[in-house]
């Protein structure tokens, strides 16, 4: 082990000397500092983000780098935030003052992104946020912060947009809605937003029921749903309770016209195996799904899977896209001046190219730096010959080819 470390150290030194020569013509390298949770509780998503970034940057560099900068290559630097906001802030300072990076990206945890992006703003260094959902990250009047993924409040917004679109497409009217959610931060937050959206979209709320996620029996909740007879059942559940609810709903033959989950427990890999056919026709909202009907999505996923042994996740896709958005902005900026890069990012209208494997049609930032087009996808659980799987159905442009959603849900 020690020998290996020695060899690695020597290599690192050689590279360092090499990089030192590079400084002589600084335009050759674009330094991008990435703050990610590479260890600690969120390490797995941090690693996904790192791998996706590396894959994208390798592709960009192989294709000739940034041409308007004389073929400059992108160089990625990493800092491990350990999901700790304090570490995030220190690392942002280090990136800017010591490493002299041109751009920062990060930091997955909203709690780390929030303060570390404030550091970047203070120094005037562009900060790209691939994923971090907290609304307020782009609501502080900052000029240098750009977010690609959807905000927290857009998840609920898209659930209602999906309902609107489905009613129109299938000519089925939905009038009443029930909210059933775990009584934590996440569930109650969603429920508050549902309440407003239901009013705006003209639904009658027939049930608003929080339940403890540790409940050992959800029959009483299911009986309440049965009594309320909603057309639409909106759920926010963790894994154990999502499974218990789905099975109990089927036992009591409760069939609303639509059941929509909010990611979380419904997206847990064990959800399908533990519920089996009871999960059939349930809808769930997600950031991305492997079957999304976008040119290149399949190939990128296959390449990623071959390299890292797992499918792309929503997190990884956003990180991958972020690198292409950066390359596109640098190309148009033609300079590494922070202000020029910032202005180019602000003028982004990225709608085609290798990065467009997301569910939405283009990336375009508003005044606050939020990607206005960021959206989510809705999947339906169904068995079309290959066992139960999650099939993308919404937005229509991303729907799996040849699949027609089952809507409304047939009575059980």
């Amino acid at each position, binding site marked *: 082990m020690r020998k290996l470390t020695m060899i690695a150290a020597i290599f690192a030194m050689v590279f360092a000397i090499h990089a030192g020569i590079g400084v002589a013509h600084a335009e050759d390298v674009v330094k991008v500092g990435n703050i990610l949770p590479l260890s600690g509780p969120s390490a797995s998503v941090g690693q996904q983000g790192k791998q996706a970034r590396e894959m994208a940057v390798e592709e960009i560099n192989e294709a000739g780098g940034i041409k308007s900068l004389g073929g400059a290559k992108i160089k990625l630097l990493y800092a491990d935030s350990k999901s700790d906001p304090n570490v995030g802030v220190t690392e942002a300072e280090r990136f800017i003052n010591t490493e002299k990076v041109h751009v920062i990206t990060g930091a997955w945890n909203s709690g780390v992104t929030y303060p570390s992006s404030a550091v970047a703003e203070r120094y005037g260094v562009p900060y790209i946020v691939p994923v971090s959902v907290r609304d307020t990250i782009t609501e502080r009047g900052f000029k240098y912060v750009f977010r690609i993924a959807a905000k927290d409040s857009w998840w609920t917004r898209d659930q209602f947009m999906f309902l609107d679109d489905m009613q129109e497409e299938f000519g089925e009217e939905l009038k009443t809605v029930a909210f059933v959610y775990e009584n934590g931060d996440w569930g109650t937050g969603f429920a508050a937003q549902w309440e407003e959206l239901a009013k705006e979209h003209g639904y009658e709320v027939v049930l608003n029921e929080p339940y403890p996620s540790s409940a050992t029996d959800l029959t*009483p909740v299911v009986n*309440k749903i049965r009594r309320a007879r909603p057309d639409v059942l909106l759920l926010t559940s963790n894994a154990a309770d999502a499974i218990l609810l789905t099975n109990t709903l089927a036992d009591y033959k409760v069939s609303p016209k639509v059941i929509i989950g909010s990611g979380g427990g419904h997206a*847990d890999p064990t959800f399908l195996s533990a519920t089996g056919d009871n999960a059939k026709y349930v809808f769930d909202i997600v950031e991305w799904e492997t079957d999304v009907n976008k040119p290149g999505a399949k190939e990128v996923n296959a390449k990623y899977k071959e390299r890292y042994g797992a499918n792309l996740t929503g997190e990884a896709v956003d990180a991958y896209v972020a690198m292409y958005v950066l390359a596109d902005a640098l190309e148009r900026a033609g300079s590494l001046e922070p202000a020029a890069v910032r202005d180019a990012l602000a003028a982004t209208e990225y709608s085609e190219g290798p990065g467009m494997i997301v569910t939405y049609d283009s990336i375009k930032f508003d005044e606050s730096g939020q990607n206005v087009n960021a959206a989510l996808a809705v999947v339906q659980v169904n068995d079309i010959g290959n066992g139960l799987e999650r099939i993308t159905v919404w937005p229509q442009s991303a729907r799996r080819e040849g699949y027609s959603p089952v809507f409304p849900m047939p009575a059980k």
Partner: protein
Amino acid sequence: MDLVFLLQDVINGVLMGSIYGLVALGLTLIFGVLKVINFAHGSFIMVGMFVGYWIVLFTGLHPYLALVLVVPVMFFFGYAVQHWLIRPIFIAERDVREPITVIIVTTGIWYVLDNLALLLFGPDYRALSPNPLKGEMLELGEIFISIPKFYGFLTTIATCAGLYWFMQKTRTGRAIRAVSLDRDAASMMGINQWKIFNIAFGIGTAVAGIAGVVLTPFYNVYPSVGVPFDVKSFVIVVLGGLGSIPGALLGGVIIGLIESLGPIYMTATWTEAIVYGLFLMVLFFKPSGLFGQKHDW
């Protein structure tokens, strides 16, 4: 309030409550004899669930047939845990009537078992499949009765009756009762206190195993599944009276009815608050519980 729906909730409350009673039964048994609060009780239920789960998965037999294997396996498991892990502490702290170290040991067993299961089986939620009981419902007009829960109810009655018979009629049962009343006097009468402790702990563990088998057809199996049932068991046992078999049953049914009927008038989150509120009230006004013995241990 629609009477049919009320009846539906009462039925579900009694069925689920009786199963809660079964879940708490092993805990109250062990306390009654050893005067030890077994924090590993939830983990024993989890072990019973996993044993039952694997048996059904490999043999495809009816889930309840797993009892034939689960009961003896869990009995000897509990017997061994008491003999090898708990007895030495009793001996080391023989001056103390209720050694606190034993509680720490049972907590240790809880952590070890849960993490061992996590290591061996991963954090996945498993549902029994093939499972002839899954989703089986008896439909009486608007009223639905869950068959797996009804079987659980019958099993609870049978287990309680069997235990009652065992305690009253057999020599070992009488010896267990004697030790639970006064272990020193029982020892002087020629009863081997340690053997009785082993047997009582074994029975308590076997009952936890039965509860595990009853839960498996309609609940998911995962390494930390015991935790919510553990907490519930403590509330039930305190409510019914520590060490009392009918107390555990009645305590379970009361909790089941609160959980089932509460949500008619309020949200499900509040019923949990009511259960814990009741727990505190009992501790405050009648610490011996509904059926608990008055005298100080």
